[in-house]
């Protein structure tokens, strides 16, 4: 039993309870509680990340509480190389998102309550080692997302976007849930514990024909949650309408839930089905990389551009998973972490610009460097990271993924490189030119840079982490690869006996 993960997940929840008890007009206290809870959670996560021992067997920092004994459900939290980085990244984004919430002036108590519940759900989903809670925490974040976009969201099609994102995510989650339950029933392990199920399946492989109907449920259920093409339409719309913090948390962290689920559960437990579906995934991921990249080129709104580019980046992660090799999957996990920081950073920038100028239309922007040297620099760095510039963590992940994928999928990888590097560069560089350079329109005269260290902190934290992981990728890869190895080995194991 280790209290580390319990406090990482529990602090935001405790914060939510505390916020609920504070009277409505103590606005400063409410904000301070939210900031303190997420900050402490981040510090503890940092310590956990530092103390994590790469290559040690099994899960670390495990804590478990029995929940429903008769069904074998335990609230079990723990990390291995696969999710230690994701949890750490999640806490950074959570703190940054809370810091960026200073823009919210209306019904602050409700807002922070929902934000903290959403953060609890997100961190819990990545820390859970029990498939019931894995799902439970993900769904916990759903209603806060819905209400936050609805009440504090922006744009004309806010209502449509709110329902669109909620229905899509519910559909994906429920399809995945059926797959998860089927897995639980099929394995006969009488436990929702991932470790127990994995051990059981290692000894008694699931028959191939059973794999063939469970795997697609998980693949497409989780795929919808990750905005796998062609189920991606909810993402740019929803993120465009969401308030800054919600978009940061959702695009940055929560969206990786489906990928994590595929890697943790679907691929290792159902190797035959996984291998036969990987070709399909490789082609679908081109839809993300090329199609959504082209869509992003056409966008005039910064928020939609970021939304579409974040969908496009998901394709590279899928490609890494499809390679089913240690290098490729490790690269995919690195991109998951890097993209989480990048997406949060992009939406934080968008939020700051919208707050200052009340517009997201890039045609009305320009010459921003003069008024906002700090934000301008962050924009250039972010966009460059988005193109895959060496020095940022994205480069590391993309390079690993593409190298590994080329072995199995020549054509797909060639097209993906073209899509990721050329198309990505086109819209990112055009965005830099439109926003940062050129003549400055009149109405920008009153726009302000991020003022004071506190307002700059979220940008520095997110960008800094991206740089550190980019310059010292071993911090991530050394942890990830030891946990990826058994998954890849299981996925490439010899066929299971067909009878059972």
């Amino acid at each position, binding site marked *: 039993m280790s209290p580390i993960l319990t406090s990482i997940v529990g602090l935001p929840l405790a914060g939510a309870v505390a916020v609920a008890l504070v009277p409505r007009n103590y606005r400063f206290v409410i904000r301070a509680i939210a900031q303190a809870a997420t900050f402490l959670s981040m510090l503890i996560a940092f310590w956990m990340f530092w103390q994590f021992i790469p290559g040690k067997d099994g899960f670390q920092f495990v804590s478990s509480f029995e*929940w*429903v*004994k*008769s*069904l074998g459900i335990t609230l079990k939290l723990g990390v291995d190389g696969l999710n230690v980085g994701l949890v750490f990244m999640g806490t950074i984004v959570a703190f940054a998102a809370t810091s960026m919430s200073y823009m919210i002036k209306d019904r602050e108590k*409700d807002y922070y309550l929902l934000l903290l519940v959403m953060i609890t759900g997100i961190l819990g989903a990545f820390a859970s080692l029990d498939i*019931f809670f894995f799902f*439970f925490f993900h*769904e*916990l974040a*759903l*209603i806060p997302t*819905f*209400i936050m976009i*609805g*009440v504090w969201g922006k744009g004309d099609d806010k*209502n449509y976007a*709110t*329902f669109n994102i*909620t*229905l899509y995510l*519910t*559909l994906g989650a*429920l*399809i995945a*849930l*059926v797959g998860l*339950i*089927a897995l*639980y*029933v*099929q394995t006969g392990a009488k436990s929702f514990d991932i470790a127990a199920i994995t051990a059981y399946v290692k000894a008694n492989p699931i028959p191939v024909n*059973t794999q063939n*109907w469970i795997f697609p449920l998980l693949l497409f259920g989780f795929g919808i949650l990750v905005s796998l093409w062609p189920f991606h339409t909810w993402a740019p719309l929803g993120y465009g309408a969401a308030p800054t913090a919600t978009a940061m948390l959702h695009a940055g962290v929560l969206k990786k839930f489906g990928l994590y689920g595929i890697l943790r559960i679907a691929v290792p437990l159902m190797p035959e089905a996984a291998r036969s579906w990987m070709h399909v995934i490789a082609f679908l991921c081109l839809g993300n990389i090329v199609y959504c990249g082209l869509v992003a080129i056409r966008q005039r709104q910064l928020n939609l551009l970021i939304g579409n580019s974040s969908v496009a980046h998901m394709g590279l992660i899928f490609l890494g998973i499809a390679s089913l090799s240690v290098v490729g999957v490790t690269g995919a996990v690195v991109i998951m972490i890097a993209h989480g920081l990048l997406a949060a950073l992009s939406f934080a920038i968008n939020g700051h610009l919208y707050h200052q100028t009340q517009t997201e239309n890039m045609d009305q922007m320009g010459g921003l460097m003069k008024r906002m040297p700090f934000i301008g620099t962050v924009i250039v760095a972010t966009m460059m990271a988005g193109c895959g510039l060496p020095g940022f963590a994205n480069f590391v992940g993309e390079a690993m993924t593409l190298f590994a994928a080329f072995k199995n999928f020549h054509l797909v990888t060639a097209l993906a490189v073209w899509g990721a590097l050329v198309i990505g560069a086109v819209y990112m560089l055009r965005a830099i030119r439109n926003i940062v350079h050129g003549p400055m329109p009149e109405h920008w005269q009153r726009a302000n840079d991020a003022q004071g260290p506190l307002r700059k902190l979220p940008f520095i934290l997110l960008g800094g982490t991206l740089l550190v992981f980019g310059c010292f990728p071993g911090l991530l890869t050394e942890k990830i690869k030891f946990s990826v190895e058994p998954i890849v080995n299981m996925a490439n194991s010899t066929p299971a006996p067909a009878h059972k």
Partner: protein
Amino acid sequence: MNSTLISLELAVGLIGLAILLIDLWTPLARKAQLGYVAAAALGVVLVLSFTIDSSTAQYGFGQTYVRDALAMFFKRFFLIAAIIVLIMSVEFADRIQAGISEFYAIVCFALCGMMFAASSNDLVMVFVSLELITVSFYVLTSFQRAKVKSLEAGVKYLIMGAVSSAFMVYGIALVFGIAGTTNFQKLAAAAVTLSAKPIFLAGILLVFVGLCFKIAAFPVQMWAPDVYQGSPTPATAFLAVGSKAAGFVLLLRLLFSAAPDVTHRWGLFLAAIAAITILYGNLCALPQRNLKRLLGYSSIGNAGYLLLGAVASNQAGSAAILYYLAGYLFTVLAAFTVITIVTRQAEDEDITILAGLNQRSPLLARALALSMISLAGIPPLAGFFGKFLLIKAVVERGAGHPAFLILIGLTILGVVISFVYYLGVVRAIYWSRVIPDSSEIVISMPARVTLCVCIAGMVIFGLFPGGLINAANAATNALHF
């Protein structure tokens, strides 16, 4: 004759009669308060019910009556529902011109019928207890005599109720004709020879249709939206929770105590009924603007989800029905209590009356929003875990069988559709564009407590389901699968 066996039912019936008597000596202005007296008295009965040991089944009255764990589970369920409905009725009393005490008394009589239904061990008992419930509801649904809608609801319920009673009696007659008995155990013992005979199957089918009327399942679901909309809100609430649960306990007894062999062969038939009910309820609820009508269709959809537990034909499925109903009790009663209070000034129950509810009364807004979220099936509320258990039970029964996979697919579709209208209510509460009335809403102390109890019920059953699952498992031990 062991009459202590029916002590709880007797007590409830006596409370109803006592209310009618006390009414004679109560001044007009204070008659509404009698609801609290009745609720308190039922509370005592509820507490006393926990002194009864029901671990072994006890039979009485010529084997027509059984007191086992399943019966006690539902008796307590009905008592809690009636207490909340009575408190709700006091809030509603200003809208009933005359005879509010009779309203309370009839609620007690309906409750008495439900408690007998929970203990039915014989088709005759099933019919008698159902008639006691249904006749009481004929009166309750048309209690607002000056309101045409209420009378219309009463008449519709009367006609549909009479038709389905006729179905049921005919079914019972057929079963008795071929089997020579109406006792559940004797029917189950003779199942091997009986279940091959078409007349027996026809009889069971007709009884099943009669029960479908009570739970508002296809093909006799048509009455639900009209009656829900027109009836006085507390009567609707009791109909939605008590009457539906009574239908389900009888369904469980019929399917898994009287004719388990037939049930097992009817897997696909039940699956089809469940699927149609789910789709019908959820699709029709989509365009509704009237809150009570919306809940009427949602109640049909929920009957469909609950039928999944019967489709599963295993203990996990029946326990899931019990669990789901327990969560449903608090969820639906919270919603109807809020509607009762909010509509005090409003003419009808259009969804626009919820505009600005968050500013007018945060407690009401929270209770209704949580209730909708629980109905939609989102953690950490009771509705989520209930749906989880139901789907799990069906997967256990038919993993890999295409028909059951289709059923699960349609269920998911139904749940996703239901998000649109449940969350539409949440939207109306929190971000309506126009707020016509922003005056604060005053809530009486008992109503406040009731709402808090309902919220606590939803959250506690959702967060700590272990105890309730054990109770549901213990209650369904006696059934045969």
